[in-house]
C-alpha cells in the first residue's frame, strides 16, 4: 500500500476505531430501543450507563468517532483530489490538529460532569 509509518498508523487506527464504533452502535441501538418495554427497563439500563466507568468509556467512543470521521474525510480527499495522496502525511497531522480542536473542549465540558457524579467536585 502506501509506504511510510503515518499512513499505516492512519489505516490501522481507522479500522480499530471502526470496529469499536460498530460494537458500540449495536449495543447502543438495542439499549435505546429497550425503551419500548417501558420506563422500568430503560431506567435500569441507564443506571448502569451513567456510572463513571461507562461515562469514561463513552468519552472513548466519542474520540473514536471523531478520529474515524476526520480520517474518513482525509481518505475521501485522497481518493477524489489530485493532491490528496501527495499530502497524505500532512493531512494526517491535520486530522490530529482538528481532533484536538474538537475533543479538548468536549473533555472540558464532559469530564467535570463525570467528576460531579463521583462526588469529587
Amino acid at each position: 500500500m502506501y509506504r511510510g509509518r503515518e499512513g499505516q498508523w492512519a489505516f490501522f487506527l481507522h479500522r480499530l476505531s471502526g470496529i469499536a464504533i460498530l460494537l458500540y452502535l449495536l449495543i447502543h441501538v438495542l439499549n435505546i430501543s429497550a425503551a419500548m418495554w417501558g420506563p422500568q427497563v430503560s431506567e435500569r439500563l441507564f443506571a448502569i450507563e451513567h456510572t463513571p466507568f461507562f461515562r469514561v468509556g463513552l468519552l472513548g467512543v466519542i474520540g473514536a468517532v471523531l478520529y474515524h470521521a476526520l480520517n474518513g474525510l482525509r481518505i475521501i480527499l485522497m481518493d477524489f483530489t489530485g493532491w490528496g495522496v501527495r499530502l497524505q502525511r500532512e493531512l494526517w497531522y491535520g486530522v490530529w490538529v482538528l481532533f484536538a480542536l474538537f475533543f479538548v473542549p468536549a473533555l472540558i465540558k464532559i469530564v467535570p460532569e463525570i467528576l460531579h457524579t463521583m462526588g469529587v467536585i
Partner: protein
Amino acid sequence: MAIRARRYSQAKAQAGTNLELAWWVFMRVSGLVLVFLVLGHLYMSNILINAGDVDYNYIARRLSNTTWKIYDWVMLSLSLLHGMNGLRYVLDDWVRDASARFWTKMVTYSLAVLVFFVGSMSLLNHDFSKGLGESTQLEHGEGTR
C-alpha cells in the same frame, strides 16, 4: 478482497465486480453523510445536554418527534450498512480460514439484521407519546433536542 485503490479510476480497475465498486463508492458517500449526522447526534446528546441526565422521558420525547424519527432512522440505516461493510473488509483481510470467515460473517450479519429490526421498530412502530405526561408534552411543543 477489499479494494486498495486510492483513486476512483484505480478502484474501478481493481474492483472484481460492479457490486464491489458500488460498495467502494457507498463507503465514501455514506461516510460523508454520516460525518454530519453522527457528529450532530453527538453534539446534541453530549454537548447541548449532560449525557448523564438522559432518561426514559428524554428518549420518549425524542422518539415522538417525526424529525428525529427520520434523522435517527437514516443514521441507523447508513451507519449499520457502513459499519457492517467495513467489518466485511476487516474479516476478509484478517480471518484467513474460509469456513471460520463464512461463519463469522453469518453470525455478525444476522446480529446486524436483528439490531436493524429492533431499532426500526422503536423508531417507526412504537408510540412513545402515550406515556408522556402533560408537562413533558408542553416541553415537546418547544421542540426536542
